[in-house]
């Protein structure tokens, strides 16, 4: 426990920050502009805002958010589908708390609940399975949202439902994969990113090697890191040094958690439950093999096949630039709706409503006093 506490030690972190600023100053001088780093994990977005780090580096480093918030990249059409599932008679829709306020086209799971749907918030997919046991007369549909970190847990729960013959449980799989979206982003060449901060907990499952292509094929450095102050600052120092010497390697700075090859058990159970499929990302469109569909032999636990809910594709809200934001093309203040028509109490797009959405995170960032 002592070690874990020290990973957030403020005295050590402030000294590290000093060093990071020195390095960033040198990089900025070399580039002749602020260095642009992209974090691909919404939890990093939140950490940068909550700790004040975004503001403390604002004059030297622009930290831009990528497509790393799973609820933010869930398309409005998929949200409508979950609302439709929740409205089916006899269905209890179980969802992570993150998802319930995210707007689709006609509302959110929260507003569906207000109109009579039975929507329950769970902390774990295992809790959704418990709901199925406790309510044998009802159909429990779990809203399967998340990346590689979350998908193996959902797979474990589906396997459990199969072995225990819990036939009133199913999953609506909207799981997405990070390496394919990173590739799509790099192919589009929309943003001149100097370096990537890679999602630490996705990498626990995939391994850091799954992201080696960023350096090898696109010549951009990247670093895998965690979420404590020491982790984040350590990774920034590593990444800035790579930018400084023009190195394009992918470094694992989160070795106390992440193995280079990932978690073999998690990868195995995912493979036994899902197969990669082309899916639609909010703001990014269809990306081949970037989502996880439930395998044919598990159809009984696939809510998509079990209930065959059809919703027509819906448009994104007019004026909403969450798509450009998720591609890293703009920062939240560049969206005309930001803090005007779109606010946490009245969100237009998903990036404002999710705690780790870039817009919600920017609202708490004070960038007025960098380097204090």
């Amino acid at each position, binding site marked *: 426990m002592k070690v874990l506490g020290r990973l957030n030690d*403020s005295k050590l972190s402030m000294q590290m920050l000093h060093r990071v600023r020195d390095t960033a100053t040198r990089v900025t001088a070399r580039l002749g502009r602020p260095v642009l780093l992209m974090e691909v994990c919404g939890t990093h977005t939140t950490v940068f*805002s909550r700790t004040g780090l975004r503001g403390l580096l604002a004059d030297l480093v622009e930290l831009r958010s990528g497509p790393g918030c799973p609820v933010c990249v869930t398309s409005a059409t998929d949200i409508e589908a979950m609302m439709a599932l929740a409205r089916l008679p006899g269905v209890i829709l179980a969802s992570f*708390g993150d998802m319930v306020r995210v707007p689709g086209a006609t509302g959110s799971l929260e507003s569906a609940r207000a109109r009579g749907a039975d929507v329950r918030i769970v902390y774990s997919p295992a809790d959704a399975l418990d709901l199925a046991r406790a309510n044998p007369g009802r159909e429990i549909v779990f809203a399967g949202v998340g990346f590689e970190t979350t998908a193996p847990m959902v797979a474990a729960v589906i396997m459990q439902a199969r072995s225990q013959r819990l036939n009133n449980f199913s999953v609506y799989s909207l799981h997405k994969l990070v390496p394919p979206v990173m590739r799509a982003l790099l192919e589009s060449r929309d943003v001149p990113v100097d370096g990537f901060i890679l999602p630490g907990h996705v990498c626990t499952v995939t391994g850091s090697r799954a992201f080696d292509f960023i350096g090898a094929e696109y010549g951009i450095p990247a670093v895998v890191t965690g979420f404590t102050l020491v982790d984040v600052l350590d990774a920034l120092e590593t990444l800035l040094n790579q930018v400084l010497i023009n190195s394009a390697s992918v470094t694992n700075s989160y070795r106390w958690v992440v193995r280079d090859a990932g978690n073999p058990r998690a990868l195995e159970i995912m493979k036994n439950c899902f197969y990669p499929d082309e899916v639609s990302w909010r703001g990014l469109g269809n990306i081949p093999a970037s989502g996880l569909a439930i395998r044919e032999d598990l159809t009984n636990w696939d809510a998509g096949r079990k209930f065959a809910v059809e919703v027509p594709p819906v448009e994104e809200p007019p004026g909403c630039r969450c798509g450009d934001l998720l591609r890293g093309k703009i920062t939240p203040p560049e969206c005309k709706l930001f803090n005007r028509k779109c606010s946490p109490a009245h969100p237009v797009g998903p990036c404002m409503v999710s705690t780790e959405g870039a817009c919600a995170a920017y609202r708490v960032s004070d960038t007025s006093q960098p380097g204090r």
Partner: protein
Amino acid sequence: MDNQEKKHDSVLLAHGDGGLLTAEMINQIFLKYFSNSVLEQLSDAAVFTVPEGRLALTTDSFVVAPVFFPGGDIGKLAVCGTVNDLAVSGAHPLYLAASFIIEEGFPLADLERVASSMADACREARVAVATGDTKVVPRGQADGIFITTTGVGVLANETDLGPHRMEPGDVVIVNGNLGDHGLAILSARETLGLEGLITSDCAPLNRLIGLLLEQCPGVKMMRDLTRGGLATAAKEIARAGGRDIFLSEERLPVHAAVRGGTEMLGLDPLYLANEGKFMAIVDPGQAGHAINLLRQHPYGLNAAVVGEVRNGEGQLYLETALGGTRILDLLAGSPLPRIC
């Protein structure tokens, strides 16, 4: 005989029809626990005299699931919430009116438990239930029991508390650990599976606050930290007073278990509800005195200075452990456990 007994296990619609069963419930539960000379008049309106000063009036409705939670229940909450609203306004609470909306089928034993803890809280706060009302609604039209309490208190003519008195340099103090109630309620909901020693901080604060006001004239205003937590209360005050408030992350008192639980669920103790906490804006010269005073009382053991008032335009900031700042806004929607 069996039927008879069953009938009396739980609240029936007939308990709300104003007839025999209503009278029975009033006598056997409410009068038994709330007994006092004003209530015993059982007239249409409570009549009482009040000491000299101005009157303060407040009302609040209480709905909580579960009805019983570690550290309290809806009854204790209904008394403390209203008493604390009066106390932070600088008033000395005197009487409460209590109105119950009960769902058909609510166990009578639970109603008695609720009434009993209301009575305990009233005794501690030295207030009396002067009048009340009960309605029973058909099953499904309420969630167990809802309670509305209205409180009346008296406030000395010279008492002047409010954001208008706030000045740059004033300090922000709280009387103890943040977020206990919010997390206790969340973890009492079984789907989260949390086990631990988190109990609600639900408590009547009027005697502690009375002491503080009496001995510490540098207290300029107070607010209880219920829904939306410290962040929401401080933001409202900053806005009302037209000054900036800076809270210091490292000075915020949070119980270790609450910190652990909030980390696990992705919540922020700054936004979690409290039911036995208040913040005060205090003249810097009296901050030490105020803290010492609070710490001598069981409801102020972890009192701390958590921030200060600066010139500005009504913003609330958090100074982080790293030396940065973060903007804090009003709570948007109740805190939900998250995995991202």
